[in-house]
C-alpha cells in the first residue's frame, strides 16, 4: 500500500492527479487512429497530438537503451555477499553498545558483532569479491561493476524502498521506470513501456514503488500479476475467439467513428478508440510474449527453470530478457524478502540459491544475443545490513538494516565492468570511499540511459520536480 499519507508534501498525490487533459495525449497517434482516420469525419486532433510514448532521443548520447532493475527487497547484506570483512571474524560476538543515530529503533542499543558465515573468493580476472555461493554469478564477474559507496536516508523498508525506486522516501513520486519512459518514450507500442514483475506479495510500500506519481498515467508501471492472468481480463470471454473479438472491436470502432464524425470535438473519443486497439494488440501480443514454453530447453535450463530453487526467479529473468527484446524500456524484477534479521546463513543461502543462476543466465543470455551492450542491469536492495546483531549466540545470527553501507552492482551498456568502486570501513558499518547519496546513483543511471536529471523535470505543485529531488551528481567512476 502506499504510505504516502504519513508524509507531508506527498500526501496530496490524488489532489494533483493528472487531469484528463494529460491523457488526451497519452496514446495519441498509434496504429488505431491511423486505421480509423478514414472513418473519422475530422481526425485532425488525433493525428496531430504528440504521442508521449513515441521513442525520442535523450538529452545526451545513451550508453544503454533499456534497463532491467533487479530489486532485492528487504536489504541484502553486503557483508555476506560482495563486501567481505575479515575483521568481523576477530570481533565475532564482541559486545558493544550503539548510541545516537546509529541506534536502530528496534533495539536496545546492546549489540554483538557477527562474522559472516560465508566464505569468499576473488572471482574473474578482475578479482571481484564474492561469497562462494554465488557460483554462477562468479562466472560473469568481469561483466559487473560493484559499487560500495551508496548511502540512503531511511532504516525502514517502505521509506527506503520509495527512496531507491522513486527518489523520494515519502512515496507518491514517479518511479525510475516512469521517469525513463517519460524521457525516452517506448520502443514498443503494443506493450507498456514500464513493466514490473513483483513477487506474489507486493513489496513493502506496494504499488507506489512503480507509480507514475505526478507524471501522466501512461508512464505508470504495469505489474504483471504473479498468479492467474498476468493482466486482468486479458482473455476475451469464453466462447469469443480473437477473430470474433476483432469484429466486435470493429463494430465499436464504427459506432464510435460515426459518433466522432458527428461530434468532432469529443476529445477523449479518439484516445479511447486507440486504447481499444492497444488493448486488442495486447491481447494478441502479451500472451505470446509471456509464453515461455516456446523457449528451447537449453535456454530454460540455463535460467534454472524447472528446478525448485530457481524456477520462480528464472522465469522472471527470462521474461525480462524477452520484454527487453520486444523493446520494453524498463523492466523491474522483485525478489525477496532479503530481510534476514536472524539465521542469515540459511536465509541468505536460500535467497542466493534462488537468484544466482537466473541472474548469471540473464547476463550471459543477453550477451550472446548482443543485447547486453544496450541494456543496463542494476542489482540492489533498499539498503545494506549491519555488521552486528542484537541477539547473541546459537545459529540465529542475523543482521539489521543499515542505510550507511550497501553493495549494488551494475552490468551492461555503459558500465565500468570488472571494477569495484568505493569502499566501506573495516567493519562494513559505513561507506568511507566514493560515498554518494542514492540521488547520485539515480543521476548516474539516468546518465547511462542518455538522460540528464536536471533536464528531466516535470512541473508539479508549484515547482519543477526531478528524480533526484533537488539535483545530484553523476558518479563518473561507475561509467565506462
Amino acid at each position, binding site marked *: *500500500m*502506499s504510505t504516502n499519507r504519513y508524509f507531508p508534501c506527498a500526501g496530496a498525490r*490524488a*489532489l494533483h492527479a493528472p487531469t484528463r487533459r494529460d491523457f488526451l495525449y497519452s496514446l495519441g497517434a498509434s496504429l488505431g487512429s491511423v486505421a480509423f482516420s478514414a472513418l473519422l469525419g475530422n481526425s485532425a486532433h488525433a493525428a496531430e497530438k504528440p504521442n508521449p510514448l513515441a521513442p525520442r532521443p535523450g538529452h545526451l548520447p545513451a550508453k544503454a537503451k533499456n534497463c532491467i532493475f533487479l530489486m532485492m527487497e528487504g536489504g541484502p547484506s553486503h557483508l555476506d555477499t560482495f563486501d567481505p570483512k575479515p575483521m568481523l571474524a576477530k570481533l565475532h560476538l564482541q559486545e558493544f553498545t550503539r548510541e545516537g543515530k546509529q541506534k536502530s*529503533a528496534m533495539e536496545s542499543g546492546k549489540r554483538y558483532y557477527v562474522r559472516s558465515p560465508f566464505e569468499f573468493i576473488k572471482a574473474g580476472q578482475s578479482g571481484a569479491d564474492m561469497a562462494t555461493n554465488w557460483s554462477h554469478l562468479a562466472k560473469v564477474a568481469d561483466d559487473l561493476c560493484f559499487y560500495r559507496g551508496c548511502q540512503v536516508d531511511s532504516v525502514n523498508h517502505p521509506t527506503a524502498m520509495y527512496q531507491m525506486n522513486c527518489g523520494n522516501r515519502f512515496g507518491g513520486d514517479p518511479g525510475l521506470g516512469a521517469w525513463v519512459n517519460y524521457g525516452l518514450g517506448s520502443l514498443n507500442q503494443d506493450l507498456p513501456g514500464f513493466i514490473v514483475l513483483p513477487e506474489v506479495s507486493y513489496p513493502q510500500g506496494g504499488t507506489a514503488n512503480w507509480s507514475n506519481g505526478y507524471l501522466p498515467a501512461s508512464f505508470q508501471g504495469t505489474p504483471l500479476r504473479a498468479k492467474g492472468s498476468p493482466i486482468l481480463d486479458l482473455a*476475451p470471454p*469464453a466462447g469469443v475467439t480473437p477473430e470474433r473479438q476483432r469484429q466486435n472491436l470493429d463494430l465499436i470502432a464504427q*459506432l464510435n467513428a460515426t459518433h466522432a464524425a458527428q461530434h468532432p*470535438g469529443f476529445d477523449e473519443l479518439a484516445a479511447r478508440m486507440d486504447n481499444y486497439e492497444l488493448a486488442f494488440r495486447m491481447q494478441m501480443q502479451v500472451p505470446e510474449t509471456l509464453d515461455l514454453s516456446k523457449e528451447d530447453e537449453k535456454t530454460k535450463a540455463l535460467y534454472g527453470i524447472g528446478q525448485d530453487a530457481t524456477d520462480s526467479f528464472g522465469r522472471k529473468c527470462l521474461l525480462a530478457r524477452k520484454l527487453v527484446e520486444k523493446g520494453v524500456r524498463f523492466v523491474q524484477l522483485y525478489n525477496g524478502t532479503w530481510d534476514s534479521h536472524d539465521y542469515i546463513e540459511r536465509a541468505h543461502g536460500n535467497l542466493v540459491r534462488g537468484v544466482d543462476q537466473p541472474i548469471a543466465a540473464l547476463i550471459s543470455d543477453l550477451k550472446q544475443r548482443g543485447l547486453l551492450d544496450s541494456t543496463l542491469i542494476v542489482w540492489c536492495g533498499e539498503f545494506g545490513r549491519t555488521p552486528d546483531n542484537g541477539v547473541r549466540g546459537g545459529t540465529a545470527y542475523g543482521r539489521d538494516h543499515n542505510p550507511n553501507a550497501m553493495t549494488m552492482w551494475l552490468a551492461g551498456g555503459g558500465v565500468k565492468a570488472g571494477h569495484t568502486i568505493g569502499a566501506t570501513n573495516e567493519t562494513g558499518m559505513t561507506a568511507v570511499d566514493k560515498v554518494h547519496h542514492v540521488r547520485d546513483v539515480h543521476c548516474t543511471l539516468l546518465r547511462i540511459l542518455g538522460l540528464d536529471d536536471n533536464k528531466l523535470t516535470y512541473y508539479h505543485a508549484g515547482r519543477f520536480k526531478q528524480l533526484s529531488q533537488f539535483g545530484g551528481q553523476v558518479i563518473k567512476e561507475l561509467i565506462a
Partner: protein
Amino acid sequence: MTIATAVGAPAKLNYNEDIQPILAENCFSCHGPDSASRKGKLRLDRAEFATAKRDDRPAITPGNPKESAVVERILSTDPDEVMPPTDSHKQLKPGEIALLTRWIAEGAEYQPHWSLLAPRRPAVPAASAKFAGSVPNQIDAFVGAKLRSTGLRPNAVEAPARLLRRLTLDLTGLPPTPTELATFELDHSPAAYARTVDRLLTTAACAEHFARHWLDAVRYADTHGIHIDNYRTIWPYRDWVIGSFHRNLPFDQFTIEQIAGDLLPEPTLDQRVASGFNRCLPTTSEGGAIAAEYEAIYAKDRVDTLSTVWLGLTTGCAACHDHKFDAVSQRDFYALTAFFRNNTMPAMDGNVADTAPNLFIPAEEDRARWTRLQEEIIAARAALDSRDRAADPDFVQWLTTASVLAPPAGDRKLGSQLPLIAERPRAVPVSADSSGKTPSPSSEDILAVDGPYGPATLLNTTAFEVGPAISLLRGKAESFAFLIRIDGAPSGSLLACFEEGRKGPGWEILIENGKLGLHVADGKGRVDARGVATAALAPGSWHHVLLSFDAASMRSRTIEVFVDGKSVANSTVSAHLPVDIVPVAPLRLGSRQATPTHAATLLTGGNVWVQDLRLFHRGFLAGDIKPLADVVDTFAAWRSAPAQRTAAQKKLLRTHFLASVDGASLAYAKTLEQLLTEDDALRLRGGVTLVMEEKKDSEASANILIRGEYSQLGEKVAAATPSALPPLPASAPRNRLALAQWLVAPEHPLTARVTVNRVWQQFFGTGLVESSGDFGVTGSRPSHPQLLDWLAVELRESGWDYRKLVRLIVTSATYRQSAAVSADTFEKDPANRLLARGPRYRLDAEQLRDQVLAASGLLVTKVGGRPVRPYQPEGVWEDVAMKESTTRFYRQDAGDDLYRRSIYTLIKRTAPAPAMDILNAPSREVSCVRRDRTNTPLQALVTLNEPLFVEASRQLAARVLREAPPAFDRRLDAVSLRLLGRKFTRSERGVVKRLHDDALALYRREPKSAEKLLATGASLTDSTLPLPDLAAWTLVASQVMNTDESLTK
C-alpha cells in the same frame, strides 16, 4: 491555466488577479513565506517585506519602478544577475514584465490571497451571452458574461433524451429507464425538467451517489489499512452519510456532526455514528510499531483530510516546515493537530474489527425495541444476581445431598448435546487409572470411570455415529466440545466427519500418543492440514476439549483447538480456510469407519473416556471457553473431601449449583437466554461502528514536531485555528466542536467556496477552481471568481441547503447545454473551462458498473448494510495479505449481494478491487477530492472482458429477447435505450445488424461456443431462450456497452 482575463485593460491592476499569479509562479519558491528556502533574505509575498529598506534600495518602491531592484534584476542581461535565475527553468514573458512594472508604478498595492478574503455576494451581471432553449438562472448570467467577453457562444440546450441521461447519471449514478425517457420526451411543459430534477433528488439512489463522492473525500474503507489490514466495522457511518444526503441534512450540520457529533450536547445515536468520520483513517497494530509515531501520523492524516475537504489547503506541507507558499506556519499546523490528539482512540487498533470507542447501532426498525430490550436484559441479570445472593441455604443443602454434578443447561447457541453416560456403571478405583496398563477391549469388565455427570463412556469399545455430516462453511461457525480422560497413550480418531483413509473432504479431532490433534482437508488438495499438540494430555484426569470453527466473524484464526480453555499449538493447521470443507462421512465418535472393527479402526494404545459431547453453532475465543472448561476443576472440587476444599473450589461448586442445578436460577437464566436470543437477532440486523470520544480530563494540545519527526518534540501548542483565518470566538472551548462550528461560521472564507466548488466539479468534471483540494497560492485560480463567490454566499445564506445548490446547478442553462463542440471552439477552449458547452466525460468506475447492472436488470437496490463481496479475480487479497489477516481470503458472496451498487463493495485498502482500481477508483488510503480520470487500454479490457460486464450483457440480451418485440430494430432499440438513452440511426443499425447476423450464424454453427459465452456469471437466464440468439445479442449488448457514448455521460 490559460484563460484570458477580461478583454480590455482594467482601470487599475489588481494584485490578486494580475500580479500574484506571476509572482507565485516565478518568485515565491525562493522569496516567499518559507524561511528555510528563502534566498537573499528577501520576501516578495508581503508588502512590508518587499518594500523594506535594503542595502541598495528596496525590492519594490511603490510608484517607482526605476527605484525597484526587482525590475532591474528582471530586466538584467547578466546571467548571474537576472531573475528568475537561469537554473530555475523559469522565465518571465514580456507581457508579465510589463504588468509587474505597471503595478509598481500604480503603487504596488498588495491584497491577502483571494481565498482568504470572505466571499461577498457579487451583483449578478446584466450583460450576458444568450442561452438558447432553456430559462437561464443566475449561474448563467455569470457564465454568459464571461462567454460574452471572450466571444464564444453558448450551445443550445441538449436533446431531451441525452439531457435526461446526463441528469440521471449525475444525480443518481444510474441510467434512466426507457419509461422515464419516454415520459420525459413526451412532456414538453417547461416545468417538466424541474419536476424531474426534484424527483431524482429525493431518491435513495441519489443519496447513494452523492455519498460515494463524499466517501472518497473522507477515505472511507472497510479495513484498517496498515500492516495486516484486518476488517473494520464502520459501515453504519457509511449508511449515515447516505441517510444524511437522503434527508438533505444542511451542510453545516453535516459538517458539525461528523467532526464533532460526539461533543454535541446529549448527542443522538446518529450524531455519535457521524463522529465515525474521525475514525475513517488508516490505522495499524503492527507489533513493534511505536505508539507516539502513529499518534503523530493519525493527527496529521486527520488534519490533512480536514484541510483538503473543508479548507482546500495543503496544510500537510507545514508538518516539516513553514508552508512554502501559503500562510500556514508549522505552529498553525500543529495547533490544528491538537484538536485531534485529545481522544480515547488507542494508537494500536488491536487488529480487531471494532476498535474502541465503538457503538452498536440497531437497524432503524429495531431501535425502539432494542432500547427496551437492553433494560429487560439488565433486569433479568439483576434477578439472577439477587437469586445468587439468596441461594446459600439451597446451595449447602445441595452440597450435602447430591450424588452427582448436573450437566449445565444449554444456552441459545447450543445445537445439540449427548451426555455419554455409561449404561453399566462400574467404578474402578481412581488410583488404578494412571497405571498405564492397557485394558483389553475384549475383557468382560467394561471399564467405566466416573465422569463429572456419572459413569463415563469408554470410547475404545463404543465408537458410533452421532449424526449427519457437519460442514465447515465460510460465513458459518460450528464448535464441538467434550470432556475426555485417557490412560496410556492412546491414538486414533475421537470425533470426525471423515472417510476412512481420509482421502475426501472432512475434518477430525484426533489423538496421537495421547496428544490432541486436528486434521482438515477439502479433498481437492488445496487444504490438507494436520496439526498435533506438543504435549500429551495428562492421563488419569478429566480435560475439556473444544474445536472452534468460526468463519462468520472476522477473526485472526478461523479454526482452533482448545484443551482446558487454552489454545493448543496447531501450527500446521491453516488459520484460515480458503474453501469450504463439506464432508460426506457422517459425524462419528471414536472411529472414522461406518462399522468399526476392533482391530484396525478403534483407538489403540490406551483408554479414552468421553462425556458430555456438545455441538454449538458459534465460535469460541479462549475467554469464552472458561465457563465450560471449568467443569474439570469443578469435578475435582466435587471429589475432594468437603473439609479439604479450598475457597476457590467452593466458589466453583457454587457457580455450578447456580448454573446447572438451582431451579430458580435456571428459570431466570432461561428468561435471560430468551432476551439474549432476541438481542442476537437485533445485533445481526444492526452493526457495530467506530465512533469518536474525547478525553474528559485534558485540554487539546500538541507538540510541534521538529522536521515532522514524532520523536523530536518542540514547543507545546494549544489547539487553535490557523492565524491567517478568522479566529475562534474567545469564548469557544478549544475542541473539535468549536473547530467544526468555526468551519461553518458565516465569516469563514473557505468552507462554502470549497464546498460549492466540489459540487460544481461533480457535475462539470472540473471545479471553478481546478485544484479542488488546493485553494492556496499554488492552487489554480478560479475560472469564474464571482460565480464561485455568489454560489458560496448562496449556499451559506440558504441555510447550507445542499440539495438546493445542486438544483441550482443542474437547472442552469449552462448545465443543460449540448456537449457538442466544433473544432474551432475546441481549439479555443479544449478543457471547457469557459463552459460554452455541456459537460461530457467518462463515467466513474462505480457508475460504469452500476450502469450495466441497472441496464441488465441485475441491480439489487437494497440500501445500506454490511459491505458485500461481488466477483473479483482469484488471489487479489490472498496474494498481498499477510497470513494472519482476517481479509486474506476473499469470500465471494452469492445471490443478491453480487449485484448491489458498487458503494457497498467491501473496500480493502491494501488490495482494491482491480477493475475499480483500473477505472480510477481511489484506494481510500488518503483523502481524495478529485479522481484521476485516465483513458487506458487496461480499462478497455475491463469493460470488454470482465465477467460482471459479460454477465450484464447476457442479462440485458435476455431481457431484450424476453420483453421487446421480435423485430431486430425493436430489440436493438431496447438495448441502446438502456445504455445510451437513445435509438440508433438507420446507418448505425445496419452496422450492428451485420455483426449480429454474423455472430448468430457463428453461434448456430458452434452452439458450444454460445454455451461457453453464456456460462459467464452466477445468475441464471431463461432456459427457453434460443442459445445462438442469446449469444449473438449478448455480443451486441457488450459492444454497445463499450461504445464511447455508453462509457461517457
